[in-house]
């Protein structure tokens, strides 16, 4: 056998063994859970997996692997033949042996030198202990701990946690700090070694080229990837089409008659983009591959800490780019461990608090607004903002004055502060915060974001938002001097152009920094040209600075995790989908650049790192605090009621808007994917049928533009998913909600707004669907009548329920009034809390429910809720708060003031469901459930 063949066989063996071992932990856990009630199928599967490894290892001469798998096989055989009950102790031994087996397989060449006698004797004792009670079996297990994989592996393979220097931007320190942290909880060193070895090696620190090449963390970097045969077939077809198109192209170019060139170009364009998408698809993997290791993490850690935790996993099938999957493993592990360690209380504490002694950690992945959301929630103690602040003051991170001014929500962000993670004993306080800054940094490197929601005593939810892919990034190409740069769209929130004669007036100076007042918010400004200028780099002649020259200014409003600022550029080019290329090793230290790309004309453009630019330009968080505070103050006076909308064109000129919160997701499809069934258009999508709407069929609109590829806006109405065909998407923007609800009003159109001097019609998706599928709504009317009847029965009153609607924006007031009246309620409107309060006190007829906005002049929603709860005559009233995404931050405060539920303003169905629910339930003494509708899906 030639050496090459041999290494190929070994590589195959490693890949195959990896697959066998991939899910083994969860299989062991399932076997443990089943206990004496053995699932033959499952045990057989594991047995066969280990047996295959043993067989191949014997053949290839990997005696250590053979020995270990042989002993594991013995134990499994006894379990299979019901001579041995898989107690937790037995499963522990098997799990640890499996860990070592995995390490052996990963470093197969040196595997024969590894001493596995500890495992062998453990396994033999477990096998011999078939008649012995499980208790004594645990003893030798602990004694054998020194031979755990950590010590026995060759040094270069061992992730040495203790020796990792503490660079805070390396995930390694996260692992390290949590390690120290668990140590403080748990004296039992023998047990500690186990998770240490079972974790993945820490990432190499300081990966400056992100996001182009995220550090391969998590499971052993897989060089193989599984691709569905159907996807490969599709790729083959596309390759064939590409060859045909090339032939056509060559023919056309060579012939004198070039009339066909347009169509050939269109064909090449289509095939290329389809090829690109399909290739991207091969990189997509289900997130379940990471999730599957967490049951083990939770089990081990909760055993170690003497806690009882259950992990509920949802959304395993959500797909993400392979590179993101690889990079997200460590941060998620960290968050899960934190939830067990700091979130869930000890069983006795939980019992005293009247909770189930077993805590629940829910891990959910789902798509939302074109991103993947991962929510990690626990029903533990929650985070005490007050104690966080105290700790931050003692650590000198903030001054006592800052602490007093700081809202609870701002205080929560403190756990992401780098200084917090350096703390050795923060856990004593109940704070999380160990290494959370690292988690945040790593997620942001991936173009993601982390959010946190907590309720004291009820639990904490960490929300991670991630882009679907990294390799191809939609970007805006801008010009600075004579050079072009790309800015990833993900970090751009909007574009602002200041007219020539306006710039001097609109740009102000604050503490030596330029700021711009954007809808009442002060935005720090950075001039790209000045930031990039360096003595020996000529980026072309700089254009005259400042407004004095009378030039219009282009400001790109960018957003990084904690900071929002404006970048002044000299010009804007197109949006392009760029392929990210890493920069060479001599430019790794440039914080302002995230990589390079090759533009359509073949020239290289550098990709800007907006976080790095902020750091370089010295835009500090403190500065940000000051500006945002100023901004809040100004915002109260001005119209801060903003709505994020998707702007799109249907016909060539008509523009429409849809509130973003109502959109479940966007799909990109080709025209030929649309089927016509029984006269209506549908899209076959992942095994289901999605009914499609065309705007011009239901409202007064020009026919939609004919395009080869279009978007489908997917939303939910009456618990059904519906898709609206959208030929061209223009932008996603925050727009003011001064909607003209008269001029263009028709069923399906709320009214008109003006965006960039263009009239834009805001759609009402609910009415639009009703116009298209009136039959779906029949049950609604029946339900409405039934609801009213029931309500009247329970009350013994012959009147319609009365709702007090408190909302300062006339637009939203009109909308929500429409929703409520449609459902048969009597509605009284109030413009602010004060007016509402007077109405509540003076009105002859009692109200049955209060629906209130949070941010209002004079008296806001929270104050109103507090007043209601403090008045014995009114305290029973259900209060539902209305929120737009902008005011989501006040949720915590609202819950504390006695608000029962939060709903999004324009989500008609949920809002109405909530109103109905709260009207029918008498407000009970117990606090409402922890509700966060913004992340529910």
């Amino acid at each position, binding site marked *: 056998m030639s050496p090459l063949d041999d290494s190929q066989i070994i590589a195959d063996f490693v890949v195959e063994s990896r697959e066998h071992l991939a899910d083994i932990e969860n299989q062991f856990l399932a076997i443990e859970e089943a206990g004496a009630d053995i699932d033959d199928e499952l045990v057989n599967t594991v047995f066969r997996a280990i047996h295959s490894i043993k067989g191949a290892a014997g053949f290839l001469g990997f005696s250590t692997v053979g020995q270990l798998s042989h002993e594991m096989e013995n134990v499994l055989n006894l379990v299979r033949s019901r001579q041995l009950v898989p107690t937790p102790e037995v499963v522990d031994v098997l799990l640890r042996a499996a860990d070592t087996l995995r390490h052996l397989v990963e470093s197969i060449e040196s595997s024969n030198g590894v001493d596995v006698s500890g495992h062998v004797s453990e396994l033999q004792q477990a096998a011999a202990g078939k008649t012995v009670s499980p208790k004594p079996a645990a003893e030798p297990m602990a004694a054998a701990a020194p031979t755990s994989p950590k010590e026995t592996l060759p040094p270069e393979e061992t992730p040495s946690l203790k020796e990792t220097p503490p660079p805070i931007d390396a995930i390694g320190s996260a692992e390290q700090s949590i390690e120290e942290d668990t140590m403080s909880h748990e004296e039992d060193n023998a047990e500690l070694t186990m998770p240490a070895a079972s974790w993945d090696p820490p990432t190499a620190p300081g990966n400056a080229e992100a996001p182009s090449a995220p550090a391969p963390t998590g499971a052993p970097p897989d060089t193989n990837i599984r691709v569905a045969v159907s996807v490969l077939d599709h790729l083959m077809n596309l390759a064939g089409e590409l060859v045909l198109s090339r032939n056509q192209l060559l023919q056309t170019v060579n012939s004198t008659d070039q009339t066909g060139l347009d169509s050939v170009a269109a064909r090449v364009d289509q095939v290329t983009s389809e090829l690109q998408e399909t290739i991207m698809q091969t990189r997509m993997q289900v997130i379940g591959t990471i999730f599957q290791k967490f049951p083990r993490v939770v089990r081990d850690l909760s055993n170690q800490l003497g806690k009882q935790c259950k992990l509920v996993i949802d959304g395993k099938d959500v797909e993400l780019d392979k590179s993101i999957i690889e990079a997200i493993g460590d941060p998620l592990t960290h968050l899960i461990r934190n939830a067990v360690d700091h979130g869930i209380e000890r069983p006795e504490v939980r019992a005293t608090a009247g909770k189930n002694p077993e805590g629940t950690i829910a891990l959910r992945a789902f798509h939302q607004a074109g991103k993947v959301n991962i929510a990690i929630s626990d029903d533990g103690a929650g985070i005490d903002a007050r104690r966080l602040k105290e700790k931050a003051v003692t650590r000198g991170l903030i001054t006592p004055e800052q602490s007093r001014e700081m809202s609870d929500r701002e205080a929560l962000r403190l756990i992401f502060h780098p200084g917090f993670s350096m703390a050795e004993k923060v856990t004593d306080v109940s704070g999380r915060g160990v290494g959370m800054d690292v988690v945040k940094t790593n997620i942001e490197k991936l173009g993601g974001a982390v959010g946190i929601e907590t309720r004291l005593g009820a639990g904490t939810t960490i929300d991670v938002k991630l882009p679907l892919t990294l390799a191809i990034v939609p970007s805006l190409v801008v010009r600075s001097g004579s050079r072009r740069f790309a800015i990833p769209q993900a970090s751009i929130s909007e574009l602002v152009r200041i007219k020539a004669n306006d710039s001097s007036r609109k740009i102000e100076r604050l503490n030596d920094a330029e700021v711009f007042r954007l809808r009442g918010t002060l935005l720090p400004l950075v001039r790209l040209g000045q930031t990039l*200028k*360096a003595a020996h780099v000529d980026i072309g002649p700089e254009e005259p600075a400042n407004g004095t020259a009378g030039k219009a200014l282009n400001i790109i409003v960018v957003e990084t995790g904690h900071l929002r600022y404006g970048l002044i550029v000299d010009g804007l080019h197109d949006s392009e989908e760029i392929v990210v290329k890493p920069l*060479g*090793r*001599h430019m790794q230290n440039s914080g302002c650049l995230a990589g390079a790309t090759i533009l359509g004309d073949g*020239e290289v453009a*550098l990709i800007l790192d907006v976080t790095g630019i902020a750091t370089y330009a010295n835009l500090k968080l403190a500065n940000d605090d000051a500006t945002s505070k100023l901004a809040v103050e100004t915002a109260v006076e001005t119209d801060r009621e903003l709505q994020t909308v998707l702007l799109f064109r249907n016909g060539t000129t008509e523009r429409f808007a849809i509130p973003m919160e109502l959109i479940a997701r966007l799909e990109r499809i080709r025209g030929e994917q649309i089927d016509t069934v029984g006269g209506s258009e549908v899209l076959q999508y992942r095994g289901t049928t999605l009914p499609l709407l065309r705007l011009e069929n239901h409202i007064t609109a020009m026919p939609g533009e004919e395009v080869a590829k279009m978007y489908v806006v997917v939303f939910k109405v009456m618990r059904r998913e519906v898709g609206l065909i959208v030929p061209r998407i223009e932008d996603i923007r925050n727009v003011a909600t001064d909607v003209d609800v008269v001029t263009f009003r028709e069923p399906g159109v709320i009214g008109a707004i003006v965006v960039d001097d263009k009239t834009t019609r805001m759609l009402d998706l609910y009415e639009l669907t009703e116009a298209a599928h009136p039959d779906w709504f029949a049950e609604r009317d029946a339900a409405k009548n039934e609801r009213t009847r029931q309500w009247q029965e329970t009350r013994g009153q012959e009147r319609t329920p009365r709702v007090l609607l408190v909302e300062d924006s006339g637009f939203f007031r009109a909308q929500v009034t429409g929703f409520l009246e449609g459902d048969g309620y009597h509605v009284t409107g109030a413009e602010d809390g004060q007016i509402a309060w007077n109405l509540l006190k003076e009105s002859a007829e009692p109200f049955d429910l209060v629906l209130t906005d949070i941010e209002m002049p004079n008296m806001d929603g929270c104050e109103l809720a507090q007043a209601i709860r403090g008045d014995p005559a009114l305290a029973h009233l259900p209060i539902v708060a209305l929120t737009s995404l902008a005011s989501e931050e006040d949720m915590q405060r609202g819950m504390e003031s006695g608000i029962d539920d939060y709903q999004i303003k324009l989500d008609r169905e949920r809002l109405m469901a909530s109103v109905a629910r709260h009207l029918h339930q008498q407000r009970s003494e117990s606090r409402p459930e922890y509700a966060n509708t913004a992340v529910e899906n």
Partner: protein
Amino acid sequence: MTLTREASAAVAIADGLEFATFYVGDLLIGVNILQVEEINRHVTLTPVPHAPECVRGVINLRGEVVTVMDLRTILGLPRGEVTATTRNVVVNSRGEQIGLLVDRIADVVKAQGDNIEAPPANVGGVQGRFFKGVVKLDTELMVILDVDAALTSDAAAH
């Protein structure tokens, strides 16, 4: 990379070494031809802000973004101008393609192993640590550039 080394060793044993040579200032410099990927006139660069001074910029080399370094700056000579004879010598250094801007291309030179002498501490005002050896040609001296040493980040960091 290791393959290249092995291969070059094999060549050395068989019939001596081949060097691609070029001028930087008055200095005739040779690079083991097996380490040279191509020589082109691609000197229209995209400058990179905040990069070390020796980095002249990046180019698109058939779809890859390749760093182009100024060999003069690395060797501590004054920065040169791009002229009609300026060439971009693309070498492979530790698995990365890197372009070296040189003033003028010269011939390919063959040298037997025993003709190569150890470099003096200083060659034409340039520190000897960048060179692997010196070869006496008919009319002048050729110094053999240690590409990897010249392109280590600390040597090239100024």
